[in-house]
């Protein structure tokens, strides 16, 4: 039952492509003119243009990161920075062009789903084209719209928070996103409002060599709570494509936010994302983050616990196949007393893939009584795949607790024999072991995402036995 390194299927299940329906696309490459054009097309206020141009300067000044993954083949001049697919964000499903609906159908988002989803805001290329919000949410004062519209409709609350958690000067890719951002979700939940149903967005890149630079900003006011869910399924491309998003979350006193992502990128996409949250006193921030596919993912969801008793939970899985590198992890920054954080990271590597955990646990001078528990589990499916755990700890206070546990396992011959001795085929047995391995993650997902997740993993595993 020793497994030889199998041939991976090169076709990609969601690799269908629709005809390009864009009505505007910028020239390839990034210049001051492109940035000005984007801002002008969007009719943005002056401060946003200045913000973009300043970010562009940062982007040009910052060197390419030399840690994490190999970015040497990423050519910034060969990327389209802005594509506008249709005139405006659509208000109802009926107004969404049929062709775009087809794409969503192929992604397995049935129209019926919208009936029970609270609000669906799906990003098609760079602009939100479909946006639906349940009436009762509006009545509660919850704002859930695409980020471009929020800039126009809620300029004050927007300006107050935008770029405060992830400033353009943070890193090269945050700077890039700040210069050319387009689309993304904006959520504001007013004081004390608890949103019971998950707010969902579906993302998809659909143009060759196109970068997607969405920008998400979520503000959860005091005592409020919300669960935001996004999933991505990208089609296959012949050349490299870049996805570089920024997500900013502000959880005010006593607020609770969970942000769930499943990203399934085509195997040639660079997925370089900055996700960060600030948790104030007694606030809870949870990142549930699933990364499948892409050529290289570098993503380390962070929570800065600024107020006493703030909580952070990060639950992530990463799956790396042939030619893929997942460099993912989490950052938990404890800056106040009695903060608690938990990181559970699960990674799977196969067919020569590389899945690394890279994490930071920081305890500031005032973090007495804070606790962090970090658990990294890795499953390596063959002899040619690799995984590394690269934890980084910074402790400036003696009165803290930090626990770190890492396990590396293989699908053991005994486990396979056991399952097969009950009549289960080798392929199903391996799948079962993998599903079990990521079960702590899938059980946290809303039902339809759990189903999709299982389907994706099954597909990823198909034909993986020699």
């Amino acid at each position, binding site marked *: *039952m*020793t497994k030889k390194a199998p041939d991976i299927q090169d076709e990609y299940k969601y690799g269908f492509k629709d005809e390009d329906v864009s009505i505007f696309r910028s020239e390839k490459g990034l210049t001051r003119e492109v940035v000005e054009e984007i801002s002008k097309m969007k009719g943005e206020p002056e401060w946003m243009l200045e913000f973009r141009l300043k970010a562009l300067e940062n982007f040009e000044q910052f060197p390419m990161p030399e840690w994490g993954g190999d970015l040497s083949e990423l050519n910034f001049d060969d990327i389209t920075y802005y594509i506008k697919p249709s005139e405006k964000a659509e208000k109802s499903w009926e107004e969404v062009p049929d062709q775009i609906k087809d794409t969503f159908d192929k992604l397995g988002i049935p129209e019926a789903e919208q009936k029970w989803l609270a609000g669906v805001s799906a990003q098609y290329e760079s602009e939100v084209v479909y946006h639906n919000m349940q009436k009762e949410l509006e009545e509660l004062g919850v704002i859930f719209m695409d980020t471009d519209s929020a800039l126009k409709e809620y300029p004050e609350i927007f300006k107050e928070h935008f770029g405060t958690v992830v400033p353009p000067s943070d890193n090269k890719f945050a700077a890039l996103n700040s210069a050319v951002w387009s689309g993304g979700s904006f959520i504001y939940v007013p004081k004390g409002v608890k949103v019971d149903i998950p707010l969902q967005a579906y993302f998809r890149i659909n143009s060759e060599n196109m970068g997607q630079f969405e920008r998400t900003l979520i503000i959860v006011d005091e005592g409020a709570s919300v669960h935001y869910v996004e999933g991505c399924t990208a089609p296959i491309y012949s050349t490299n494509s870049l996805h570089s998003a920024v997500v900013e979350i502000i959880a005010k006193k006593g607020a609770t936010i969970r942000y769930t992502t499943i990203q399934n990128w085509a195997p040639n996409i660079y997925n370089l994302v900055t996700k960060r949250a600030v948790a104030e006193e007694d606030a809870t921030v949870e990142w549930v983050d699933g990364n499948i596919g892409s050529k290289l993912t570098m993503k380390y969801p962070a929570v800065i616990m600024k107020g006493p008793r703030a909580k952070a939970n990060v639950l992530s899985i990463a799956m790396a196949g042939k030619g893929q590198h997942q460099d993912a992890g989490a950052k938990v920054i404890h800056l106040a007393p009695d903060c608690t954080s938990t990181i559970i990271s699960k990674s799977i590597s196969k067919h020569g893939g590389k899945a690394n955990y890279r994490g930071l646990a920081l305890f500031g001078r005032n973090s007495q009584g804070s606790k962090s528990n970090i658990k990294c589990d890795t499953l390596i499916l063959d002899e040619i795949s690799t995984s590394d755990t690269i934890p980084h700890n910074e402790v400036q206070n003696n009165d803290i607790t930090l626990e770190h546990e890492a396990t590396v396992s293989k699908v*053991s*011959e*005994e*486990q396979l*024999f*056991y*399952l*097969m*001795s*009950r*009549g*289960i*085929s*080798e392929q*199903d*047995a391996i799948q*079962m*072991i993998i*599903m*079990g*391995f*990521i*079960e*702590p993650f899938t059980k946290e997902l809303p039902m339809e995402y759990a189903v999709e997740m299982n389907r994706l993993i099954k597909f990823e595993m198909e034909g993986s036995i020699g």
Partner: protein
Amino acid sequence: MSQPKLTIEDLQVSVEGKKILKGLSLEIKGGEVHAIMGPNGTGKSTLASTLMGHPKYKVESGSVTLNGENVLEMATDERARKGIFLAMQYPSEISGVTNADFLRSAINARRGEGNEISLIKFVREMEKKMSFLEMKESFAQRYVNEGFSGGEKKRNEILQMMMLKPQIAILDEIDSGLDIDALKVVAKGVNEMKGPEMGVLVITHYQRLLNYIKPDYVHIMMQGRIVRSGGPELAEKLEAEGYDWIKEELGIEDETVSQRS
């Protein structure tokens, strides 16, 4: 279903180049309970694992057939689907997979696509069998063998046997690490299943188990082969007198397989 028949002829098996089974023959028919007894290191568990097709065990010569079909050509999962079941001495833990999901997958693998068991029927049957084996209901939703005590693991093996309804059930040291109450429950499960549609091979080195699962045939294994066969009285004699008398009769000094013979 006609009466099943497992036939083992002159089976020779090696592990990592070392010969363990040195010519073993045995026939088990539906309705029969065979017990293989013998001290440690005589090849008993090798026989069990070989019959199930564990990749570590290499068949050098001989044959194994189930109802005339060549078992040795089948992969482990195929053997299981044909009706061979092995209750393991050390069942694996499968984290994140519930006992119920696991069992249903196993049953459906055997039934084949388009003929899956209905969820309701499955749940009812599993609940019934679990209650028969005095297992808590929570075991259905616990992860396969994870955090189970020794006794719970063995009950779980018997539960699987009862759900899968094999033609040939091999119980490899099912009694090891069991207290008397757990042993009785395990035996109750096996006895419940006894009948012309299932043959049983019990592997043990204690006669104790055979007080509860009555064998029709008892075989003594030494040096990788069956050195004596008889009825239940043979097990009783072993219990009373140990193995030495047999060794003496056969002129064996070292009964383990490491002995060159």
